[in-house]
């Protein structure tokens, strides 16, 4: 066998490996493409429907025959949607702010302080967290109704509901705080910093990803909540959030006139969440995994 042949042989073997790799890659990509198409179709469908102007009811085709913004215009002019949107935005904003503060304080305390019943408290909250929140719905409704925070005044009521149990969601951020060396705290304390100063000056700047993660999750939750919002707004349009309000468009007497408006509403609802997500995306991944490494 000449030298050339050997080279040729090796080359052939290389080609084979590359081909196999290409083949497996192709297969993987095809599977991924199929999955992503399946996953994306509903979203694309909703966006297309929202721009369809020829009629308001569901049709048997996907691509609109007439494009335009009439659904969006009608949504904002002829329905209570702006009110619902504002409600949800206010709820999300307040929830995000208050919940973030509570969660961070809670995590910091449980991570850095040692006090009696600390372990017991953590376990108690863990067990409490196993119960589905829906169980408390009836009693919460009664309480809120008695203090007058239902129906038209559902917005503060809902903020209260979302924020009330937020202290229990400390796990991920506590895990993250635990990864920050304690010696940093100690150094700051020796230099005369108070506990609060340690949290705000030392820990928080280091824990930026987790702060952002907490804000994001707290901000996003109210946009999709339906069950609580439905009960607490109890038929009063002025107190509804987007999910409850838009759901009304799907009722028997409205769906034929409001279906495309519903889709337009869905798109508008997605916008703030998408923007926020895009801006803060890189922190988000860090935040979620950060706590897990050494949690």
């Amino acid at each position, binding site marked *: 066998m000449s030298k050339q042949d050997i080279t040729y042989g090796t080359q052939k073997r290389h080609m084979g490996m590359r081909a196999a790799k290409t083949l497996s890659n192709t297969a993987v990509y095809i599977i991924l493409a199929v999955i992503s198409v399946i996953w994306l179709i509903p979203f694309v469908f909703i966006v297309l429907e929202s721009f369809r102007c020829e*009629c308001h*009811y*569901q*049709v*048997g085709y996907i691509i609109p025959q007439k494009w335009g913004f009439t659904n969006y215009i009608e949504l904002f002019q002829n329905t209570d949607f702006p009110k619902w949107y504002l409600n949800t935005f206010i709820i999300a904003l307040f929830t995000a702010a208050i919940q973030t503060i509570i969660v961070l304080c809670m995590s910091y305390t449980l991570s850095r302080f040692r006090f009696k019943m600390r372990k017991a408290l953590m376990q108690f909250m863990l067990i409490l967290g196993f119960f589905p929140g829906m169980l408390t719905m009836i009693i919460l*409704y009664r309480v809120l*109704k008695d203090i007058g925070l*239902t*129906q038209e005044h559902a917005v503060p009521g809902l903020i209260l509901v979302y924020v009330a149990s937020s202290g229990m969601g400390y796990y991920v951020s506590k895990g993250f705080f635990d990864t920050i060396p304690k010696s940093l705290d100690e150094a700051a304390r020796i230099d005369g910093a108070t506990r609060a100063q340690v949290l705000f000056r030392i820990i928080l700047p280091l824990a930026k990803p987790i702060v952002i993660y907490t804000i994001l999750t707290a901000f996003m939750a109210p946009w999709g909540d339906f069950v609580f919002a439905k*009960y607490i707004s*109890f*038929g*009063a*349009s002025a107190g509804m959030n987007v999910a409850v309000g838009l759901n*009304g468009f799907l*009722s*028997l*007497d*409205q*769906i*034929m*006139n409001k*279906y495309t408006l519903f889709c337009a509403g869905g798109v508008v609802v997605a916008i703030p969440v998408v923007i926020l997500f895009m801006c803060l995306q890189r922190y988000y991944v860090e935040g979620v995994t950060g706590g897990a490494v050494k949690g």
Partner: protein
Amino acid sequence: MKRILAIALSLVMVLALVACGGGKKSELAGTYDIKVWCAENIVDLTKQQIEDFNKNNEFGITFNATVEPVGEGDAATQMIVDVDAGGDIFCFAQDQFARLVQAGALSKLGVEAGKNVKESNDADAVAAATMGEDLYAYPMTADNGFFMYYDKSVIPEEHIDSLEDILADCEAAGKYFAFETNTSAWYIASWFFATGCKSEWTTDADGNFTAVNDTFDSDAGIIACKGMKKLLDSPANLSSSDGAAFAKNAAVVVTGTWAFTGIKEILGDNMGAADLPSFTVDGQSYHLGSFKGFKLMGVKPQDDANKGAALHKLAQYLTSEQGQLERFNAVAWGPSNTAALAKDEVQANTAIAAVVAQGQYATPQGQIHGSWWNIAKVIGDDVAAANDDAGLKEALDNYKAKIDALFGMTGYIFVGAWNGWDNADMSVKMEDNNGVLTITLDVPESDFMGGRIVTAGTWDTDLGFAQVTEGADLLNAEAAGDDNNIVFLAAGNYTVTCDTTAKTITIVKN
């Protein structure tokens, strides 16, 4: 201080004068804050109607009304959850009526109002708003039933009376026949009503269900299933009652007046509406039935009696001939008020005409147990899955067993002459003690003092005269017959004990 008192006193006097001098003003006069719940498409109209009422009523009532769009389906559910927070006046479909009365969400109509309603409305509509002897709601529409919309370009006029012809047309054109058979008991019942089956429920004055006469599980029921199977087995079958199905290749949709405007928009001049077709089984033709339903308007009980009375005045106004006609003109809801229904413009509406045409085959939707809707809705799927008559029978048996369970109709009963041979009568239930059944009962004098031990709700038994081991001398052996009946020789009080494992029966005269 004195001055304030003087002013206050004189104010009271002036007010008293005004109150007396008003003449026509009644004790109801005043301004009330109220909340009204109605369907989204009549919100604006209702606001307008309330303003008209404020201007024109003779009682001096002014309503400061908030009208919220809470559809009929939602309104009832919400009211039951929290009556207190619900609308003062709300609209609902009649199937929710019994639940609402039970929940204390409806206030009774006064004698005068009741008389008015009875005189001016369709008798079935009045029955739908009646519980026991009393009226609890105001009939608002009589169009809450279903019929058939069809595409004239696919189904020729001469075919619309026959299910088989329509299916053939749909199959030939590659179009769908939309009939909601796999999710809705309301539509499924249509097939059973066609063959004369019944599901009649009895309530007491508090809205509690006490008995049911349900004949779906019968030979007629099997015929109904066979008819339904024709549709279910056809490639044209589509389970939907959504008017938008016309935009998705349907040629026929079975639905109601609420879809009228939408369908008109899709089909334009090709839109046809008619009563449901007939189907043929074993050479005999059966016209599809339907529910004839009503939408009602209710007034929530109030702490303030005057406010309650004022609300009733408003509800009367909103459901009066004029109110119903206004609603017809705005959104084409079919009136329950007989005078309004007789108007030419109402009669000229195709959808209303179809409701009226279907009306003669329709069963007024009385009070139906809330669980029935879930129990009956599976029939469609069960029928589709069945391959032969035995399968159909099994589907209906399952249905019947669930209905019986609603009334605790389980275990054995000693049915016979003493209870009028009513096999659903749980007062003759035998006490079950680990398979040993006992009952003590009075047997009154009659020609045939017979009976048998059966599973509640059925006639199935293998426990009768032949199994009697003790006390056979008290019985008439000759009268037992092929049915193995237990026939007493004389009237009196007896204790019957039956061991279901050993299959022995002991009878003792007390």
